[in-house]
C-alpha cells in the first residue's frame, strides 16, 4: 500500500449515516460512515480488504483503531462496531446520523484472500471481535466471491444472546444453503436453539475438517488462546490458522513504535497473522 503522497496522518472527512445499538445492554454500537468526498470513497474501496482496520478520529478525544465490519459490495459506507470502554468510545456512542467524524485507512494487511482461493473457510469468532469476521463472511457471500471458495463454516459465540451482533442478518444465515452457521452462547437461555458453551468446545463439537481448509480465529485473548490448540489437534497446520491481533496504537502506519512486537508492527505488518508467524514472535502480546 502507498499513501499516494497524502499526509497519512490527516483523517478522511466522513459523517455518520446510521448509528444503532448492536447489543441489548447498549455496550456495543454500530456506526456506518459515508465519505464527504467521492474521490476519497473511490480510493478507499480500491485499497480495502476484509480484515483491515481504520483509525477513527474525533478531535479532543483522539484516535482509536477499529476493524471494518462491512464488505465493499454492501454499499458506499464503512461499518464499525464499537464497544463502549474508554473516553473515545464513550463519545463515539453519542454520535448521531449527520455528525462529522474523521477516519484514516484502510490500515493493515487484512486477510490473505488470494492465498485462500479455492479453500474451505472456517471462521471462528467470539464477542465483539467478530466484526472483521462479519466483513469477511459478507465478502464471501457475494455471488462473485462465493465461487472463489469451497465450504464456508462460521462459528460465532457470545456471552449471551443479547450480546450477539448483527442478529437479524446472522439469523438469515441459518436458511442459506451455501454455508454452515454455528452460534453459541456461554450459559443456557430460554428459546435458544443453538449451541451452549464456550467457543473452543463448540469448535471441538463441530470438528471442521482441516482438508484444504484455513481457519480464522478472532475473539477475546482467552478464547483465542484455548481455540488455537483445538484447531491444531483437529489437524490444522499453524500456517493455515490465522488470527488478528490488537494492541494500543497511535499512528497506524508503523511510525510511532507503540504496537511493536519483535520485528513486526501490528498496525502495518498485521493485524492478521498466521499462527506460524505468531510462533516466531516473542511472547510480548
Amino acid at each position: 500500500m502507498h499513501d499516494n503522497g497524502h499526509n497519512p496522518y490527516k483523517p478522511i472527512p466522513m459523517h455518520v449515516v446510521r448509528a444503532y445499538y448492536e447489543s441489548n445492554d447498549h455496550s456495543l454500537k454500530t456506526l456506518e460512515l459515508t465519505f464527504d468526498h467521492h474521490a476519497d470513497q473511490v480510493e478507499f474501496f480500491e485499497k480495502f480488504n476484509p480484515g483491515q482496520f481504520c483509525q477513527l478520529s474525533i478531535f479532543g478525544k483522539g484516535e482509536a483503531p477499529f476493524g471494518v465490519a462491512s464488505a465493499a459490495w454492501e454499499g458506499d459506507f464503512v461499518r464499525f462496531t464499537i464497544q463502549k470502554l474508554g473516553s473515545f468510545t464513550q463519545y463515539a456512542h453519542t454520535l448521531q446520523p449527520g455528525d462529522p467524524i474523521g477516519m484514516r485507512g484502510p490500515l493493515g494487511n487484512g486477510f490473505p484472500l488470494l492465498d485462500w482461493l479455492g479453500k474451505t473457510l472456517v471462521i471462528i469468532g467470539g464477542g465483539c471481535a467478530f466484526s472483521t469476521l462479519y466483513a469477511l463472511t459478507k465478502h464471501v457471500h457475494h455471488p462473485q466471491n462465493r465461487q472463489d471458495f469451497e465450504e464456508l463454516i462460521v462459528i460465532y459465540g457470545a456471552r449471551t444472546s443479547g450480546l450477539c451482533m448483527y442478529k437479524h442478518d446472522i439469523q438469515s444465515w441459518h436458511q442459506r444453503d451455501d454455508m454452515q452457521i454455528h452460534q453459541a452462547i456461554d450459559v443456557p437461555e430460554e428459546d435458544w436453539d443453538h449451541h451452549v458453551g464456550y467457543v473452543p468446545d463448540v469448535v471441538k463439537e463441530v470438528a471442521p475438517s482441516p482438508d484444504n481448509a484455513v481457519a480464522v480465529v478472532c475473539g477475546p485473548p482467552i478464547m483465542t488462546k484455548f481455540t488455537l490448540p483445538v484447531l491444531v489437534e483437529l489437524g490444522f497446520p499453524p500456517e493455515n490458522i490465522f488470527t488478528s491481533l490488537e494492541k494500543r496504537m497511535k499512528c497506524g502506519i508503523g511510525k510511532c513504535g507503540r504496537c511493536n512486537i519483535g520485528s513486526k508492527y501490528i498496525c502495518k505488518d498485521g493485524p492478521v497473522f498466521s499462527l506460524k508467524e505468531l510462533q516466531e514472535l516473542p511472547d510480548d502480546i
Partner: protein
Amino acid sequence: MMYLLEKKKINTELSAWAKDYEVITPQKVENYTQFLPFDESSTLELTNPHNTRYPPKALFFPQTETMLTYNSRLGRFEETQVRDEPRIIFGIRPCDASAFALMDTVFLSEDYTDPYWKTKRESAIVVGLGCNNPPQTCFCTTVGGGPFNHEGLDALLTDHGEFFFVQVLTEKGRALFEDLPLASEEQVNEIKKIQKKASDKMAPAFETKGLKQKLDIIFESSYWEKIAESCLGCGICTFLCPTCFCFDIVDEVQRKKRIRNWDTCMFRIYSQEASGHNPRPSNRERTRQRLMHKYSYWLDQIGEIGCTGCGRCVRYCPVGLDIRAMLRIASQQESEVIHA
C-alpha cells in the same frame, strides 16, 4: 578532496551562510549544549568532546510538533505548513548524523512517508564534526560506526590546528565548501592519521557478534528482572537517544491542534490498553523492549543495530545504568541458559 576552513574565519563563514540558510550549531546554554540557530551573539561549542546533551533528532522530529489544526466550524482537520526553509546543521557528531540515516528507514519507508520528517530532512545540509578524542562513554566503533563515520552527512570536518579540514561527501556539501582552499596531500595524510588514531583508541565496549541471538534466547530469563531492578522508568535514556522515534499523538483542545510528542516505551501507559490489559506491565518488560528493539528487532528489520553508540543513555541515566554493561551481562547470560 579536502578543503581548509580557517577556524578564525568560522563566524564569518557561518554569518555568510546565514543569509541564505538557517544555520544551526551546537551552542552552550546554561550548563549544557544544544543545537540552536546561529547569530552574531551565539556561543559556539565546537571544542567539547561530548555531543550535545539534547539530541539533534529534534531538528527533524521536534519534541513537540503540530501535525494538524482543527477547524471547529467545519468539524474538520486541516494541514499545517511544515517548515521547509533551507538549513545548515553545522558541527553534528557522526553518531547523531548516522542516527538520521537510521530514522530515515522509519519515517521515509516505502509504504508510508512521514511528511513532517521528510520536508525538514530534505531541506537540510548536514555538516559533521569528527571526534578526535572520543569520551569514555562513547562506543560508536562497537556498533559499526566510528568517530569519523560518513553516514548521514554531506560533509565532515576534522579539527586540526588552525583549521577544520573539510571532506565533501555529497553535492550538497560541495556547494558549501568549493570556494575554500584545498588541503595539500601531506595535510590530507595527516588528517587520515588523526582519524585512524581516534578510532583505534576506542576499545570494543561489548561483543556484538551473536548478541542478537543471545538476546532472543534469554527473552524469558530472570536477567531482565535483575537489570530492571534499579531502573526508575524515567525514560531519559529514550528521550535523549538519537534513534528513539516513538511518539504519542494528542489533541490540544484549546489551541485547536493535534500534536505529537516524543514518547517512551519506558512508561507504563505507553502500552496500556483500554481494556486494562498491559503487555508490558513492569520495568522488566519495558527495559527488555528498549534493549531488544535496538539490538534485536532493528537487525530483523533493516539488518543494522538501532544504536549509534552516542553514549547519552550512559551519561545521563540518573541511577547509572549502563547499556554497555547490560549487554555484556546479557552475553554471559546465554552460556548459563545453555548449560542449565
